[in-house]
């Protein structure tokens, strides 16, 4: 009971902390934020249910007015902005990533890579593109072109989610809650 609560809260804090890290140079020359990496890790490490709840808790704090999104954004305004689709997709992406992680028997690193690609890139882009199309009054194809800008960074982050999940599985197998059950 307490353990689920603290895991959800601490990973919500981790997503926020990853957004505060000043321009962690994840890949040479590509200044990408680690925040959506945090979303992927919520799913691959905590599993579907807890991962999605951690992301929802994080979004609740953003809505309450804490500047926790990358670049110090937050408040109610971001939920009527053009990237609202990505915010709606965050918890669903974490859930799907966790679900994939729980359902495969692959080695944790490869499973997490697949989970991050399906949940963190596929599902998240789907919602992001729908949001862009609705908010900017574009067709889905046009919105997809705008969303392409995020793709190179997302691929790097999915790879990192795989590596980090694998390193957690190696260092402390019992800590990988998505594989605990």
């Amino acid at each position, binding site marked *: 009971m307490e353990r689920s609560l603290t895991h959800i809260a601490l990973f919500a804090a981790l997503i926020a902390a990853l957004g505060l890290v000043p321009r962690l140079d994840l890949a040479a020359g590509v200044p990408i934020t680690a925040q959506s990496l945090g979303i992927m890790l919520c799913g691959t490490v905590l599993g579907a249910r807890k991962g999605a709840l951690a992301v929802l808790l994080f979004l609740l704090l953003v809505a*309450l007015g804490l*500047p926790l999104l990358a670049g110090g954004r937050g408040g109610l305004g971001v939920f009527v*902005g053009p990237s609202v689709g990505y915010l709606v997709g965050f918890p669903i992406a974490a859930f799907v990533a966790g679900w994939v992680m729980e359902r495969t028997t692959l080695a944790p690193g490869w499973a997490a890579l697949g989970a991050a690609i399906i949940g963190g890139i596929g599902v998240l882009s789907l919602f992001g593109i729908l949001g862009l199309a609705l908010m900017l009054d574009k067709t889905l194809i046009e919105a997809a072109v705008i969303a392409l800008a995020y793709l190179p960074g997302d691929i790097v982050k999915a790879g990192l989610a795989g590596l980090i999940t694998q390193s957690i599985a190696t260092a402390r197998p019992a800590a990988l809650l998505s594989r605990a059950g």
Partner: protein
Amino acid sequence: MLTLTSPIDTRLHPVRAGVKLAALALVTLGLFQIASPLPLIGVALSLGVLHIAVGGLRFAAHALRMLWPVWPFVVVVGLWHLWLGDLAGGSVIVLRMLCAIAAANLVTMTTRLADMIAVIERLARPFAFALPPRRLALAIALVIRFIPVLAERMGHLRDAYRARSAGRQVGWRILGPAALAALDDADHVAQALRARGGAE
């Protein structure tokens, strides 16, 4: 912990949070019914006047700065509609988006965190069978407490990495240890909570 609540005291600060949120919902719904640029320019101007009226020029300037992060979208939509030759359509999209964001930011800037949390607790009360309000409040408090702790820990990990490998870029390698440390913290806090009588 910093919040986006404006330190400049405005006339909207004492208004009840629930009232402001309800008004915001109505304004946002209304905005999406407007489909021509002229009324939207009117809304934008009256929002500007409202900002100055409740909080003065400095408050209004601060609110304007909070709109800055959406500029890439304004540029994309602007160029797109310039190319299509549909200026009216483009300006409706941009103005509507800016007005909706500005109105939402105004509520965020004039409502204290404690008042927002009180609204959430009240809204969550009917769902108490699934999510006890006290547990939700505890979770919110834990996140707010642990964000600076985790950020500081990441700073330590980065310094340690630099000390070991001078000249090399500190990259993603600290993220694994950072996630592990968060998992450990979660276990310790869970134990501490249980020792004090549990999370109920």
